[in-house]
């Protein structure tokens, strides 16, 4: 068997595996919810850690062929990270407000409200953007087949290599 056909950890950072490994990220995220059900802050902490690793992976892999798609998807990954952070902040703030021991309760309530809105907007941007991207992808699929697209991407890759070599 050729070396390149043997499995190695580097396959985790190859662009063509991007969607597949995203599945395992989602799978781990979904499983962490019931596993840490009794520890809400740990639960959100794990989601933040997984999403942070996903952002790092995205920066290493740069999976998409076009710069615009890479930027849009990267921003969406960051938006999801912001949503998880706001959820953690809300959890911390609600604990402080419910303890009612601080004289900063008015400020904390206001912060809770602001953070809640940021999270709400973040998750809406995330969901609506994916829906818009789905429609764009369907339209692009009708204009050009996947095979033509793949061939063009490969052609551009070799063209860039030749240009760099020269």
């Amino acid at each position, binding site marked *: 068997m050729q070396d390149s056909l043997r499995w190695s950890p580097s*396959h985790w950072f190859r662009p063509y595996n991007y969607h597949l490994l995203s599945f395992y990220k*989602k799978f781990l995220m*979904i499983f962490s919810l019931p596993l840490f059900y009794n520890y809400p802050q740990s639960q959100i902490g794990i989601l933040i850690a997984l999403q942070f690793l996903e952002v790092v992976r995205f920066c290493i892999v740069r999976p*998409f062929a076009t710069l615009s798609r890479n930027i849009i998807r990267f921003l969406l990954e960051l938006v999801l990270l912001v949503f998880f952070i706001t959820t953690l902040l809300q959890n911390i703030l609600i604990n402080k407000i419910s303890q009612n021991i601080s004289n900063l309760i008015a400020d904390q309530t206001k912060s809770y409200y602001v953070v809640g809105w940021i999270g709400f907007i973040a998750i809406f941007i995330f969901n609506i953007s994916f829906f818009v991207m789905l429609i764009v992808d369907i339209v692009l*699929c009708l204009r050009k087949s996947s095979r033509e697209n793949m061939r063009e*991407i490969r052609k551009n890759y070799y063209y860039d290599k030749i240009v760099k070599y020269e």
Partner: protein
Amino acid sequence: MAKVYSIFHKLHEITIFYLSMGLVLEWVYFDSTSTLRIISLIVCLLFNTYYLIYQLYVYYDLISYPTLQLGTEEYRRMAIKYGYFLRNIRY
């Protein structure tokens, strides 16, 4: 055939999310005295196991993709089967 595979992968993408969420809910609200809850949990577990195996199969099938040459039979098979994943992906 490529369109059929694209629809197949899209269907997977949508159902994976809902059935995984279903498994979470079954896990949280599980009641061993309810037959309905037990059946529902088993169905969710079976589907999630299938998804795991399926994604693993695609992962190992795609390992040879960068070494394939344009125009070969194997490349054509990959383009038909996994064009949905690879159409916007950097080579």
